[in-house]
Protein backbone atom coordinates (compact mmCIF):
# COMPACT_ATOMS: atom_id res chain seq x y z
CA UNK A 1 0.00 0.00 0.00
CA UNK A 2 2.79 2.35 1.05
CA UNK A 3 4.78 1.30 -2.01
CA UNK A 4 1.91 1.97 -4.44
CA UNK A 5 1.36 5.39 -2.88
CA UNK A 6 5.02 6.19 -3.32
CA UNK A 7 4.79 5.10 -6.97
CA UNK A 8 1.75 7.38 -7.47
CA UNK A 9 3.60 10.29 -5.88
CA UNK A 10 6.65 9.54 -7.99
CA UNK A 11 4.65 9.56 -11.24
CA UNK A 12 2.97 12.83 -10.20
CA UNK A 13 6.33 14.48 -9.45
CA UNK A 14 7.80 13.26 -12.74
CA UNK A 15 4.87 14.80 -14.69
CA UNK A 16 5.34 18.09 -12.80
CA UNK A 17 9.07 17.98 -13.50
CA UNK A 18 8.54 17.47 -17.24
CA UNK A 19 5.97 20.28 -17.25
CA UNK A 20 8.35 22.66 -15.40
CA UNK A 21 11.29 21.78 -17.63
CA UNK A 22 9.29 22.05 -20.86
CA UNK A 23 7.84 25.48 -19.93
CA UNK A 24 11.23 26.84 -18.99
CA UNK A 25 13.12 25.40 -21.98
CA UNK A 26 10.54 26.55 -24.54
CA UNK A 27 9.92 29.81 -22.68
CA UNK A 28 6.17 29.34 -22.70
CA UNK A 29 4.51 32.59 -21.58
CA UNK A 30 2.77 32.57 -18.19
CA UNK A 31 -0.55 33.58 -19.68
CA UNK A 32 -0.50 30.41 -21.81
CA UNK A 33 0.88 27.86 -19.34
CA UNK A 34 2.54 28.87 -16.09
CA UNK A 35 5.18 26.63 -14.51
CA UNK A 36 3.99 24.34 -11.67
CA UNK A 37 6.30 25.99 -9.10
CA UNK A 38 4.67 29.36 -9.78
CA UNK A 39 1.17 27.83 -9.53
CA UNK A 40 2.07 26.34 -6.16
CA UNK A 41 3.41 29.72 -5.00
CA UNK A 42 0.21 31.48 -6.09
CA UNK A 43 -1.90 28.76 -4.47
CA UNK A 44 -0.18 29.38 -1.14
CA UNK A 45 0.62 33.10 -1.18
CA UNK A 46 -2.74 34.23 -2.56
CA UNK A 47 -4.70 32.30 0.05
CA UNK A 48 -6.38 35.47 1.26
CA UNK A 49 -7.88 35.94 -2.22
CA UNK A 50 -8.76 32.27 -2.72
CA UNK A 51 -10.15 31.51 0.73
CA UNK A 52 -13.34 33.65 0.63
CA UNK A 53 -14.20 32.28 -2.82
CA UNK A 54 -13.44 28.71 -1.70
CA UNK A 55 -15.64 29.26 1.34
CA UNK A 56 -18.60 30.21 -0.86
CA UNK A 57 -18.07 27.23 -3.19
CA UNK A 58 -17.71 24.90 -0.21
CA UNK A 59 -20.93 26.28 1.27
CA UNK A 60 -22.74 25.71 -2.03
CA UNK A 61 -21.45 22.15 -2.22
CA UNK A 62 -22.27 21.33 1.41
CA UNK A 63 -25.79 22.76 1.09
CA UNK A 64 -26.16 20.82 -2.18
CA UNK A 65 -25.14 17.63 -0.40
CA UNK A 66 -27.57 18.38 2.44
CA UNK A 67 -30.49 19.01 0.08
CA UNK A 68 -29.72 15.96 -2.04
CA UNK A 69 -29.57 13.80 1.10
CA UNK A 70 -32.92 15.17 2.24
CA UNK A 71 -34.38 14.17 -1.12
CA UNK A 72 -32.41 11.01 -1.96
CA UNK A 73 -32.84 9.02 1.25
CA UNK A 74 -36.66 9.30 1.48
CA UNK A 75 -36.99 8.94 -2.30
CA UNK A 76 -34.90 5.74 -2.46
CA UNK A 77 -36.80 4.39 0.55
CA UNK A 78 -40.21 5.10 -0.99
CA UNK A 79 -39.09 3.62 -4.30
CA UNK A 80 -37.95 0.50 -2.48
CA UNK A 81 -41.12 0.25 -0.40
CA UNK A 82 -43.36 0.80 -3.42
CA UNK A 83 -41.94 -0.71 -6.63
CA UNK A 84 -44.75 1.01 -8.57
CA UNK A 85 -43.27 4.36 -7.48
CA UNK A 86 -39.86 3.22 -8.71
CA UNK A 87 -41.33 2.24 -12.07
CA UNK A 88 -43.11 5.59 -12.34
CA UNK A 89 -40.10 7.72 -11.32
CA UNK A 90 -37.23 5.85 -12.98
CA UNK A 91 -37.64 7.54 -16.38
CA UNK A 92 -37.56 10.97 -14.73
CA UNK A 93 -34.49 10.04 -12.70
CA UNK A 94 -32.63 8.90 -15.79
CA UNK A 95 -33.83 11.95 -17.75
CA UNK A 96 -32.57 14.24 -15.00
CA UNK A 97 -29.07 12.87 -15.66
CA UNK A 98 -29.41 12.74 -19.43
CA UNK A 99 -29.88 16.52 -19.59
CA UNK A 100 -26.43 18.15 -19.40
CA UNK A 101 -25.93 20.29 -16.31
CA UNK A 102 -24.58 23.02 -18.61
CA UNK A 103 -28.02 23.23 -20.20
CA UNK A 104 -29.75 23.70 -16.87
CA UNK A 105 -27.32 26.22 -15.39
CA UNK A 106 -28.55 29.33 -17.30
CA UNK A 107 -32.15 28.49 -16.50
CA UNK A 108 -31.45 28.04 -12.80
CA UNK A 109 -29.58 31.34 -12.69
CA UNK A 110 -32.53 33.06 -14.38
CA UNK A 111 -34.99 31.50 -11.96
CA UNK A 112 -32.99 31.65 -8.72
CA UNK A 113 -30.69 34.61 -9.35
CA UNK A 114 -26.95 35.20 -9.09
CA UNK A 115 -26.78 34.22 -5.41
CA UNK A 116 -25.83 30.83 -4.08
CA UNK A 117 -29.31 29.29 -4.47
CA UNK A 118 -28.85 28.40 -8.15
CA UNK A 119 -25.41 26.84 -7.46
CA UNK A 120 -26.69 24.89 -4.49
CA UNK A 121 -29.44 23.46 -6.64
CA UNK A 122 -26.97 22.61 -9.41
CA UNK A 123 -24.80 20.70 -6.95
CA UNK A 124 -27.85 18.97 -5.47
CA UNK A 125 -29.04 17.86 -8.93
CA UNK A 126 -25.66 16.27 -9.64
CA UNK A 127 -25.30 14.60 -6.25
CA UNK A 128 -28.78 13.22 -5.71
CA UNK A 129 -28.70 10.69 -8.54
CA UNK A 130 -25.73 8.56 -7.42
CA UNK A 131 -26.95 8.59 -3.82
CA UNK A 132 -30.53 7.63 -4.74
CA UNK A 133 -29.50 4.87 -7.13
CA UNK A 134 -26.85 3.45 -4.79
CA UNK A 135 -29.11 3.44 -1.76
CA UNK A 136 -31.95 1.84 -3.72
CA UNK A 137 -29.54 -0.80 -5.00
CA UNK A 138 -28.34 -1.40 -1.46
CA UNK A 139 -31.89 -1.94 -0.19
CA UNK A 140 -32.59 -4.33 -3.06
CA UNK A 141 -29.38 -6.22 -2.42
CA UNK A 142 -30.55 -7.39 1.00
CA UNK A 143 -30.61 -11.18 0.97
CA UNK A 144 -34.06 -12.67 0.63
CA UNK A 145 -33.52 -15.09 3.53
CA UNK A 146 -32.91 -12.22 5.95
CA UNK A 147 -35.94 -10.29 4.74
CA UNK A 148 -38.08 -13.40 5.02
CA UNK A 149 -36.75 -14.10 8.50
CA UNK A 150 -37.78 -10.62 9.60
CA UNK A 151 -41.19 -11.20 8.11
CA UNK A 152 -41.51 -14.45 10.04
CA UNK A 153 -40.56 -12.61 13.21
CA UNK A 154 -43.52 -10.32 12.56
CA UNK A 155 -41.50 -7.22 11.73
CA UNK A 156 -43.32 -4.53 9.75
CA UNK A 157 -41.70 -2.63 6.90
CA UNK A 158 -40.42 0.32 8.96
CA UNK A 159 -38.93 -1.89 11.66
CA UNK A 160 -37.31 -4.07 9.01
CA UNK A 161 -36.03 -0.91 7.33
CA UNK A 162 -34.44 0.33 10.57
CA UNK A 163 -32.95 -2.96 11.73
CA UNK A 164 -32.15 -4.68 8.43
CA UNK A 165 -32.47 -2.79 5.15
CA UNK A 166 -30.83 0.48 6.21
CA UNK A 167 -27.71 -1.09 7.79
CA UNK A 168 -27.52 -3.49 4.86
CA UNK A 169 -27.64 -0.59 2.38
CA UNK A 170 -25.17 1.64 4.25
CA UNK A 171 -22.05 0.51 2.30
CA UNK A 172 -23.93 1.27 -0.94
CA UNK A 173 -25.11 4.60 0.44
CA UNK A 174 -21.56 5.63 1.29
CA UNK A 175 -20.34 4.49 -2.14
CA UNK A 176 -22.97 6.75 -3.73
CA UNK A 177 -22.10 9.59 -1.38
CA UNK A 178 -18.42 9.30 -2.31
CA UNK A 179 -19.29 9.58 -5.99
CA UNK A 180 -21.65 12.46 -5.16
CA UNK A 181 -19.13 14.56 -3.27
CA UNK A 182 -16.51 13.89 -5.94
CA UNK A 183 -18.68 15.36 -8.67
CA UNK A 184 -20.42 17.99 -6.52
CA UNK A 185 -17.78 20.58 -7.38
CA UNK A 186 -18.80 20.33 -11.05
CA UNK A 187 -22.34 21.52 -10.33
CA UNK A 188 -21.27 24.40 -8.12
CA UNK A 189 -18.53 25.62 -10.47
CA UNK A 190 -20.71 25.44 -13.57
CA UNK A 191 -23.32 27.48 -11.75
CA UNK A 192 -20.67 30.04 -10.84
CA UNK A 193 -19.41 30.21 -14.42
CA UNK A 194 -22.86 31.03 -15.73
CA UNK A 195 -23.53 33.80 -13.27
CA UNK A 196 -22.18 34.53 -9.83
CA UNK A 197 -20.57 37.21 -7.71
CA UNK A 198 -18.36 34.95 -5.63
CA UNK A 199 -16.91 31.45 -5.61
CA UNK A 200 -13.95 29.64 -7.16
CA UNK A 201 -15.80 29.28 -10.49
CA UNK A 202 -16.38 33.03 -10.56
CA UNK A 203 -12.68 33.61 -9.68
CA UNK A 204 -11.62 31.31 -12.53
CA UNK A 205 -13.75 33.20 -15.07
CA UNK A 206 -12.47 36.57 -13.83
CA UNK A 207 -8.84 35.43 -13.79
CA UNK A 208 -9.14 33.88 -17.23
CA UNK A 209 -10.46 37.16 -18.64
CA UNK A 210 -7.34 38.90 -17.22
CA UNK A 211 -5.03 36.18 -18.59
CA UNK A 212 -4.13 35.18 -15.00
CA UNK A 213 -3.86 31.52 -15.89
CA UNK A 214 -1.78 30.90 -12.76
CA UNK A 215 -4.76 31.99 -10.63
CA UNK A 216 -7.06 29.71 -12.68
CA UNK A 217 -4.76 26.78 -11.87
CA UNK A 218 -4.63 27.84 -8.22
CA UNK A 219 -8.44 27.79 -8.09
CA UNK A 220 -8.44 24.34 -9.71
CA UNK A 221 -5.97 23.12 -7.08
CA UNK A 222 -8.16 24.47 -4.28
CA UNK A 223 -11.20 22.82 -5.85
CA UNK A 224 -9.36 19.50 -6.10
CA UNK A 225 -8.24 19.79 -2.48
CA UNK A 226 -11.83 20.50 -1.40
CA UNK A 227 -13.07 17.46 -3.33
CA UNK A 228 -10.36 15.26 -1.83
CA UNK A 229 -11.09 16.50 1.70
CA UNK A 230 -14.82 15.78 1.32
CA UNK A 231 -14.09 12.36 -0.16
CA UNK A 232 -11.72 11.58 2.72
CA UNK A 233 -14.28 12.79 5.26
CA UNK A 234 -16.97 10.53 3.78
CA UNK A 235 -14.47 7.65 3.85
CA UNK A 236 -13.72 8.40 7.50
CA UNK A 237 -17.43 8.46 8.34
CA UNK A 238 -17.92 5.21 6.43
CA UNK A 239 -15.24 3.50 8.51
CA UNK A 240 -16.75 4.88 11.71
CA UNK A 241 -20.32 3.85 10.87
CA UNK A 242 -19.73 0.53 9.08
CA UNK A 243 -17.55 -1.15 11.66
CA UNK A 244 -18.63 -4.67 10.66
CA UNK A 245 -17.00 -4.55 7.21
Amino acid at each position, binding site marked *: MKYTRLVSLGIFLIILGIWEAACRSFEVPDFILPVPSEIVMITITKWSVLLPHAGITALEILLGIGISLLISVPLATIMFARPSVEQALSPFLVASQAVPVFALAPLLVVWLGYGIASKVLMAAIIIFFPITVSLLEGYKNCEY*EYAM*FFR*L*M*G*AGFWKTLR*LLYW*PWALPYFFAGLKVGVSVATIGAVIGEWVGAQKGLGYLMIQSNARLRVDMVFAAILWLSAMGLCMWAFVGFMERRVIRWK
Partner: protein
Amino acid sequence: MLDISEITKKFDGLTVLNRFNLSVPRNGFTALVGPSGCGKSTFFDVLTGVVPKDSGTIYWLGKNLPSLGRKAAYMQQKDLLLPWFSLMNNALLPVKISNQINKASREKAQELFGRLGLDGFENYTPQQVSGGMRQRCALVRTLMFEHELVLLDEPLSALDAITRRSLQSLLVLLQSEFKKTILMITHDVEEALVLADEVLVLTNPPMRIRERFSLRGNKPRQRSDPELIRIREHILDELQSELTDEVY
Protein backbone atom coordinates in the same frame (compact mmCIF):
# COMPACT_ATOMS: atom_id res chain seq x y z
CA MET B 1 -50.56 -30.80 18.61
CA LEU B 2 -49.56 -29.71 15.13
CA ASP B 3 -51.94 -31.24 12.63
CA ILE B 4 -51.33 -30.69 8.93
CA SER B 5 -53.98 -32.06 6.67
CA GLU B 6 -54.37 -32.46 2.90
CA ILE B 7 -51.79 -29.78 2.01
CA THR B 8 -51.43 -29.33 -1.74
CA LYS B 9 -48.96 -27.10 -3.56
CA LYS B 10 -48.24 -26.95 -7.27
CA PHE B 11 -45.64 -24.91 -9.16
CA ASP B 12 -46.16 -24.45 -12.90
CA GLY B 13 -47.79 -27.82 -13.31
CA LEU B 14 -45.37 -29.66 -10.98
CA THR B 15 -47.18 -31.04 -7.96
CA VAL B 16 -44.77 -30.78 -5.05
CA LEU B 17 -47.27 -31.56 -2.30
CA ASN B 18 -50.39 -33.54 -2.99
CA ARG B 19 -52.79 -33.82 -0.05
CA PHE B 20 -49.89 -34.21 2.34
CA ASN B 21 -50.70 -35.09 5.96
CA LEU B 22 -48.55 -34.85 9.05
CA SER B 23 -49.06 -34.76 12.82
CA VAL B 24 -46.58 -33.75 15.48
CA PRO B 25 -47.64 -34.34 19.09
CA ARG B 26 -47.25 -31.52 21.58
CA ASN B 27 -43.69 -31.50 22.96
CA GLY B 28 -42.79 -34.06 20.30
CA PHE B 29 -39.75 -34.04 18.02
CA THR B 30 -40.39 -35.12 14.44
CA ALA B 31 -37.68 -35.21 11.79
CA LEU B 32 -38.25 -35.27 8.04
CA VAL B 33 -35.62 -36.88 5.85
CA GLY B 34 -35.89 -37.18 2.12
CA PRO B 35 -33.96 -36.97 -1.13
CA SER B 36 -32.84 -33.55 -2.37
CA GLY B 37 -35.60 -31.73 -4.17
CA CYS B 38 -38.37 -33.85 -2.68
CA GLY B 39 -40.24 -30.76 -1.46
CA LYS B 40 -39.18 -30.50 2.18
CA SER B 41 -38.23 -26.85 1.94
CA THR B 42 -41.37 -26.05 -0.04
CA PHE B 43 -43.33 -27.74 2.71
CA PHE B 44 -41.67 -25.47 5.30
CA ASP B 45 -42.30 -22.44 3.09
CA VAL B 46 -45.97 -23.40 2.95
CA LEU B 47 -46.08 -23.92 6.72
CA THR B 48 -44.51 -20.52 7.42
CA GLY B 49 -46.62 -18.78 4.80
CA VAL B 50 -43.65 -17.76 2.66
CA VAL B 51 -45.51 -19.37 -0.23
CA PRO B 52 -49.28 -19.78 -0.11
CA LYS B 53 -50.72 -23.29 -0.09
CA ASP B 54 -53.20 -24.28 -2.80
CA SER B 55 -55.39 -26.18 -0.35
CA GLY B 56 -55.34 -27.99 2.98
CA THR B 57 -55.47 -27.03 6.63
CA ILE B 58 -52.93 -26.33 9.35
CA TYR B 59 -54.08 -26.82 12.92
CA TRP B 60 -51.91 -25.77 15.83
CA LEU B 61 -53.23 -26.36 19.36
CA GLY B 62 -56.68 -26.84 17.94
CA LYS B 63 -56.74 -23.60 15.95
CA ASN B 64 -57.04 -23.54 12.19
CA LEU B 65 -54.34 -21.17 10.90
CA PRO B 66 -53.58 -19.96 7.37
CA SER B 67 -49.88 -20.48 8.19
CA LEU B 68 -47.59 -20.88 11.18
CA GLY B 69 -45.74 -17.68 10.28
CA ARG B 70 -45.93 -15.91 13.62
CA LYS B 71 -46.76 -18.92 15.76
CA ALA B 72 -43.45 -20.72 15.30
CA ALA B 73 -39.80 -20.01 15.94
CA TYR B 74 -37.63 -20.73 12.94
CA MET B 75 -34.01 -21.75 12.67
CA GLN B 76 -32.20 -22.67 9.51
CA GLN B 77 -28.85 -23.68 8.10
CA LYS B 78 -27.72 -20.09 7.76
CA ASP B 79 -27.55 -18.45 11.17
CA LEU B 80 -28.95 -15.17 9.80
CA LEU B 81 -27.13 -13.14 12.44
CA LEU B 82 -26.82 -9.45 11.67
CA PRO B 83 -23.15 -8.38 11.48
CA TRP B 84 -23.91 -4.87 12.77
CA PHE B 85 -25.30 -6.20 16.05
CA SER B 86 -23.48 -7.87 18.93
CA LEU B 87 -24.36 -11.50 19.71
CA MET B 88 -26.56 -10.30 22.57
CA ASN B 89 -28.44 -7.84 20.38
CA ASN B 90 -28.88 -10.55 17.76
CA ALA B 91 -30.35 -12.85 20.37
CA LEU B 92 -32.69 -10.09 21.52
CA LEU B 93 -33.96 -9.42 18.00
CA PRO B 94 -37.32 -11.24 18.41
CA VAL B 95 -38.17 -9.21 21.52
CA LYS B 96 -36.91 -6.02 19.91
CA ILE B 97 -39.23 -6.59 16.99
CA SER B 98 -42.21 -7.34 19.19
CA ASN B 99 -41.39 -4.26 21.35
CA GLN B 100 -41.10 -6.47 24.43
CA ILE B 101 -37.51 -5.75 25.31
CA ASN B 102 -37.14 -5.25 29.05
CA LYS B 103 -35.00 -6.26 31.99
CA ALA B 104 -36.59 -9.71 32.15
CA SER B 105 -35.88 -10.46 28.49
CA ARG B 106 -32.26 -9.33 28.89
CA GLU B 107 -31.89 -11.54 31.94
CA LYS B 108 -33.39 -14.47 30.08
CA ALA B 109 -31.00 -13.97 27.16
CA GLN B 110 -28.09 -13.67 29.57
CA GLU B 111 -29.09 -16.90 31.25
CA LEU B 112 -29.36 -18.69 27.90
CA PHE B 113 -25.95 -17.36 26.92
CA GLY B 114 -24.59 -19.03 30.04
CA ARG B 115 -26.43 -22.28 29.37
CA LEU B 116 -25.24 -22.48 25.79
CA GLY B 117 -21.63 -21.64 26.53
CA LEU B 118 -21.64 -18.09 25.22
CA ASP B 119 -20.91 -16.37 28.51
CA GLY B 120 -18.44 -13.56 28.02
CA PHE B 121 -19.16 -13.26 24.28
CA GLU B 122 -22.24 -11.05 24.58
CA ASN B 123 -20.55 -8.02 23.06
CA TYR B 124 -18.72 -9.85 20.31
CA THR B 125 -19.99 -9.45 16.76
CA PRO B 126 -20.87 -12.54 14.69
CA GLN B 127 -17.77 -12.18 12.51
CA GLN B 128 -15.56 -12.36 15.61
CA VAL B 129 -16.72 -15.83 16.68
CA SER B 130 -16.73 -19.37 15.23
CA GLY B 131 -19.51 -20.95 13.18
CA GLY B 132 -20.54 -23.10 16.13
CA MET B 133 -20.87 -20.07 18.40
CA ARG B 134 -22.86 -18.24 15.78
CA GLN B 135 -25.27 -21.15 15.55
CA ARG B 136 -25.54 -21.31 19.34
CA CYS B 137 -26.41 -17.63 19.31
CA ALA B 138 -29.05 -18.39 16.65
CA LEU B 139 -30.37 -21.05 19.02
CA VAL B 140 -30.63 -18.50 21.85
CA ARG B 141 -32.51 -16.24 19.46
CA THR B 142 -34.85 -19.13 18.60
CA LEU B 143 -35.54 -19.62 22.31
CA MET B 144 -36.20 -15.90 22.76
CA PHE B 145 -39.23 -16.21 20.48
CA GLU B 146 -41.30 -17.71 23.29
CA HIS B 147 -43.13 -19.81 20.69
CA GLU B 148 -43.86 -23.37 21.65
CA LEU B 149 -43.48 -24.64 18.11
CA VAL B 150 -40.00 -24.67 16.55
CA LEU B 151 -39.27 -25.32 12.88
CA LEU B 152 -35.70 -26.37 12.18
CA ASP B 153 -34.54 -26.32 8.57
CA GLU B 154 -31.23 -28.22 8.47
CA PRO B 155 -30.01 -26.12 11.37
CA LEU B 156 -26.61 -27.75 11.75
CA SER B 157 -25.76 -28.79 8.22
CA ALA B 158 -23.27 -25.97 7.66
CA LEU B 159 -21.15 -27.00 10.65
CA ASP B 160 -18.23 -29.37 10.94
CA ALA B 161 -18.88 -32.84 12.41
CA ILE B 162 -17.52 -32.12 15.91
CA THR B 163 -19.36 -28.83 16.34
CA ARG B 164 -22.48 -30.44 15.00
CA ARG B 165 -22.38 -33.18 17.61
CA SER B 166 -22.02 -30.72 20.47
CA LEU B 167 -24.93 -28.66 19.14
CA GLN B 168 -27.13 -31.71 18.72
CA SER B 169 -27.16 -32.04 22.51
CA LEU B 170 -28.38 -28.46 22.68
CA LEU B 171 -31.20 -29.21 20.26
CA VAL B 172 -32.34 -31.94 22.63
CA LEU B 173 -32.59 -29.27 25.34
CA LEU B 174 -35.17 -27.46 23.20
CA GLN B 175 -37.53 -30.35 23.73
CA SER B 176 -36.57 -31.70 27.14
CA GLU B 177 -36.02 -28.49 29.04
CA PHE B 178 -37.80 -25.77 27.11
CA LYS B 179 -40.76 -27.99 26.26
CA LYS B 180 -40.83 -27.12 22.59
CA THR B 181 -42.64 -29.00 19.87
CA ILE B 182 -40.11 -29.52 17.10
CA LEU B 183 -40.40 -30.25 13.41
CA MET B 184 -37.00 -30.61 11.76
CA ILE B 185 -35.80 -31.07 8.19
CA THR B 186 -32.41 -32.71 7.83
CA HIS B 187 -30.31 -34.48 5.25
CA ASP B 188 -28.41 -36.22 8.01
CA VAL B 189 -30.22 -39.49 8.72
CA GLU B 190 -28.09 -40.19 11.77
CA GLU B 191 -28.89 -36.76 13.21
CA ALA B 192 -32.60 -37.45 12.76
CA LEU B 193 -32.31 -40.83 14.49
CA VAL B 194 -30.24 -39.46 17.36
CA LEU B 195 -32.53 -36.54 18.11
CA ALA B 196 -36.11 -37.20 17.02
CA ASP B 197 -38.99 -39.16 18.53
CA GLU B 198 -40.29 -39.89 15.07
CA VAL B 199 -38.43 -39.96 11.76
CA LEU B 200 -40.43 -39.69 8.54
CA VAL B 201 -38.83 -40.81 5.29
CA LEU B 202 -40.16 -38.86 2.33
CA THR B 203 -40.48 -39.64 -1.36
CA ASN B 204 -39.71 -37.63 -4.47
CA PRO B 205 -42.43 -35.16 -5.57
CA PRO B 206 -45.29 -35.26 -5.05
CA MET B 207 -43.92 -35.65 -1.55
CA ARG B 208 -45.48 -38.30 0.64
CA ILE B 209 -44.40 -40.27 3.69
CA ARG B 210 -42.73 -43.46 2.52
CA GLU B 211 -42.02 -44.86 5.96
CA ARG B 212 -42.10 -43.72 9.57
CA PHE B 213 -39.96 -44.81 12.50
CA SER B 214 -40.91 -44.21 16.12
CA LEU B 215 -37.91 -44.18 18.39
CA ARG B 216 -37.52 -44.47 22.12
CA GLY B 217 -34.79 -44.01 24.68
CA ASN B 218 -32.81 -41.16 26.14
CA LYS B 219 -31.56 -38.52 23.75
CA PRO B 220 -29.22 -37.85 22.17
CA ARG B 221 -29.16 -41.57 21.39
CA GLN B 222 -26.02 -43.62 21.08
CA ARG B 223 -24.80 -43.68 17.50
CA SER B 224 -23.25 -47.10 18.09
CA ASP B 225 -26.64 -48.64 19.02
CA PRO B 226 -27.04 -51.63 16.61
CA GLU B 227 -30.73 -50.95 16.18
CA LEU B 228 -30.05 -47.33 15.25
CA ILE B 229 -27.40 -48.42 12.76
CA ARG B 230 -29.81 -50.92 11.22
CA ILE B 231 -32.53 -48.28 10.80
CA ARG B 232 -30.02 -45.78 9.43
CA GLU B 233 -28.82 -48.22 6.76
CA HIS B 234 -32.41 -49.09 5.89
CA ILE B 235 -33.35 -45.41 5.48
CA LEU B 236 -30.24 -44.71 3.41
CA ASP B 237 -31.14 -47.64 1.14
CA GLU B 238 -34.62 -46.21 0.72
CA LEU B 239 -33.30 -42.73 -0.06
CA GLN B 240 -30.88 -44.22 -2.55
CA SER B 241 -33.70 -46.08 -4.25
CA GLU B 242 -35.59 -42.77 -4.47
CA LEU B 243 -32.58 -41.32 -6.26
CA THR B 244 -32.47 -44.33 -8.57
CA ASP B 245 -36.17 -43.95 -9.29
CA GLU B 246 -35.47 -40.35 -10.23
CA VAL B 247 -32.61 -41.27 -12.57
CA TYR B 248 -34.44 -44.02 -14.42
